[in-house]
């Protein structure tokens, strides 16, 4: 595996949650503009990988290295990783009552601009951008004034995540089971939003349990994560194979525990 011009390089990563080892020697290399799908059974460590990369409290790295754009990601605080261009779209976005979406988004954008030595964006300019982003993800503009995720339906929350991504313009987006809880129409909207953001300088890690999402977001690579390791990698056709055969042929001895995740 070559590191030249890689956006993200993960080497032999071991990580645990509450002293339980979940990631057990994971390697991954992502170049700018690539879309990598990570599939696998429940409990394989898919969501954990997203949390470890974004630096969530309680997720500790035991060994291995991760670089983003050549910088040591593991040395950075959670917010520094975000400012370095890492974005995580949550599987279950949390509510922040009373804090308007607009206020939250502008504060986030400004924090990232500040880290780059730029001035805060003017309120008028930001409002314009935010309205355009709403339109793109098919959310009424009124959602900007509502509390962050407050009373949103499952689909609205996911679209709200996508809107944040559009405004923050990250280098690396991790979509954590973005398809869960979405009907087919909502799934299409989200997928279109993601596809519109694909570019030569933006990469994606699409974490999903089902192949369905990959019908809409075509990955360059598909990896199967099982028991904390990537056990198989391939192109988009691997996803179809998994859909047809399930995960069991890749797993040695799945425990009850892992299946329930």
């Amino acid at each position, binding site marked *: 595996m070559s590191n030249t011009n890689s956006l993200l390089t993960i080497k032999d990563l071991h990580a645990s949650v509450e002293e339980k080892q979940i990631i057990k020697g994971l390697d991954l290399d992502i170049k700018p503009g690539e879309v990598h799908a990570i599939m696998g059974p429940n409990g394989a460590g898919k969501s954990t990988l997203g949390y470890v990369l974004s630096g969530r*409290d309680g997720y500790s790295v035991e060994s291995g290295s991760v670089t983003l754009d050549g910088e040591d990601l593991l040395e950075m605080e959670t917010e520094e990783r975000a400012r370095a261009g890492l974005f995580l779209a949550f599987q279950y976005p949390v509510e922040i009552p009373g804090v308007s979406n607009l206020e939250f988004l502008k504060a986030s954008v400004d924090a990232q601009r500040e880290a780059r030595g730029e001035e805060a964006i003017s309120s008028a300019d930001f409002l314009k951008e935010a309205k355009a982003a709403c339109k793109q993800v098919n959310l009424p503009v009124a959602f900007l004034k509502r509390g962050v995720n407050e009373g949103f339906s499952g689909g609205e929350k996911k679209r709200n995540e996508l809107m944040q991504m559009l405004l923050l313009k990250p280098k690396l987006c991790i979509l954590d089971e973005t398809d869960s809880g979405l009907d087919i129409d909502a799934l299409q909207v989200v997928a279109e939003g993601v596809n519109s953001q694909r570019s030569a300088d933006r990469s994606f890690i699409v974490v999903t349990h089902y192949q369905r999402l990959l019908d809409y977001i075509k990955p360059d690579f598909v990896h199967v994560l099982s028991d904390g390791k990537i056990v198989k990698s391939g192109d988009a056709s691997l996803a179809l194979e998994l859909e047809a055969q399930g995960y069991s042929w890749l797993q040695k001895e799945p425990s009850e525990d892992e299946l329930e995740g």
Partner: protein
Amino acid sequence: MTEQIDKALAREYEAGFVSDVESETFEPGLNEDVIRRISGMKGEPEWMLEWRLGAFREWLEMEEPDWALVDYPKIDFQSISYYSAPKSMKDKPKSLDEVDPELLRTYEKLGIPLIEQQMLAGVAVDAVFDSVSVVTTFREKLEEAGVIFCPISEAVHKYPDLVKKYIGSVVPKKDNYYAALNCAVFTDGSFVYIPKGTRCPMELSTYFRINEQNTGQFERTLIVADEGSHVSYLEGCTAPQRDENQLHAAVVELVAMDNAEIKYSTVQNWYPGDENGKGGIYNFVTKRGICHTNAKISWTQVETGSSVTWKYPSCILKGDNSVGEFYSVALTRGRQQADTGTKMIHLGKNTKSTIISKGISAGRSNNSYRGLVRMNPGAEGARNFTQCDSLLIGDQCGAHTFPYVESRNPSAIVEHEATTSKVSDEQMFLCRQRGLDPEKAVSMIVNGFCKEVFKELPMEFAVEAGKLLEISLEGSVG
């Protein structure tokens, strides 16, 4: 995580400086002679002195209340000085030019410039320093509208009939221990009278500052809004950082005549003591308003200071169709203790009250909401809605809710909702994952929690309140 949040909340107490002002301060101690001296300093008429002495005699018979969920050593009332005034105030400066520049500087440092040209247009200020009013701005402009806004010590001389009629009419002398003490020893405060049918042309504001050591501040505010009038009044307070506890026992009385409306907002930022609970102000305050027919009184308070707070701004809804509101944010951290809430006493028909209380506890603090809603037999068709929300930050603080409901009219409706929540790890993670540092994340989450109350504050105060909670209101467009 808790550590980060605590750090975020551990802001410096910016108002903690001491002003170098030469003061005339009474020896500590409390007896009838001290009361006569206070009255003498103010050159009060005999009736006022008699009123004070009456209250003092009642107070001697009373017991300090101990029902609140606060814990503090017994106060030695003989160790407190009951009067302190800057010497320069003795000759009663006639204009701002004659006021000691050090006093003006003090208020300027607190962000309250008293030079009218520098002030926020539309806010008149009465500045009370220890036991006296230093200056009241914009008085001529207010007088044109017939509005009286002056120190209460002056009102006793200039408007004795109004003062005599209304003082003690809402909070009787022997209402409670601290109110009785205040009646005996009050030194200054503000008096407001809005004539019939007048809309006060500007916001009125009193800024209380305790400066002198070992001194209590006992101010008294009386606001009378005559029929069909309207006034919005703001109150702010700070004190230097000192190791000893200081007592602040105020009384505020509001009278809203028929169809009148009074909006009373407080941003309380008395010195809260250090993180181990050393020093700080004991804030034992009685605030009450009476609403006549169709009148409305709205209390909004943001309580961030004091080491101990004991305060229940209340409404007596005497007239039919009158409305009482109470919006409160109380933030406690370190070792602070707050027992605060309201009383809504429904006497008239179709009276309505709304209570929105937001308690935020952090550190090792204790934060209690205590509220009474009483529907008297005559309160036909009366309604109350109460919402009490508590937000816990960390795992060593306490939040308590003590709602009392007494309904003696079957047609009255009382609703109570209460929630307790925490600043969750998920919320913090979401904010940080979007690039916000933990301090900003906490203040944003807390700000969101308080939004329903902040929106009730006049603009100038909303900004101050936001700053107090270390909240940047940047980006609040839309």
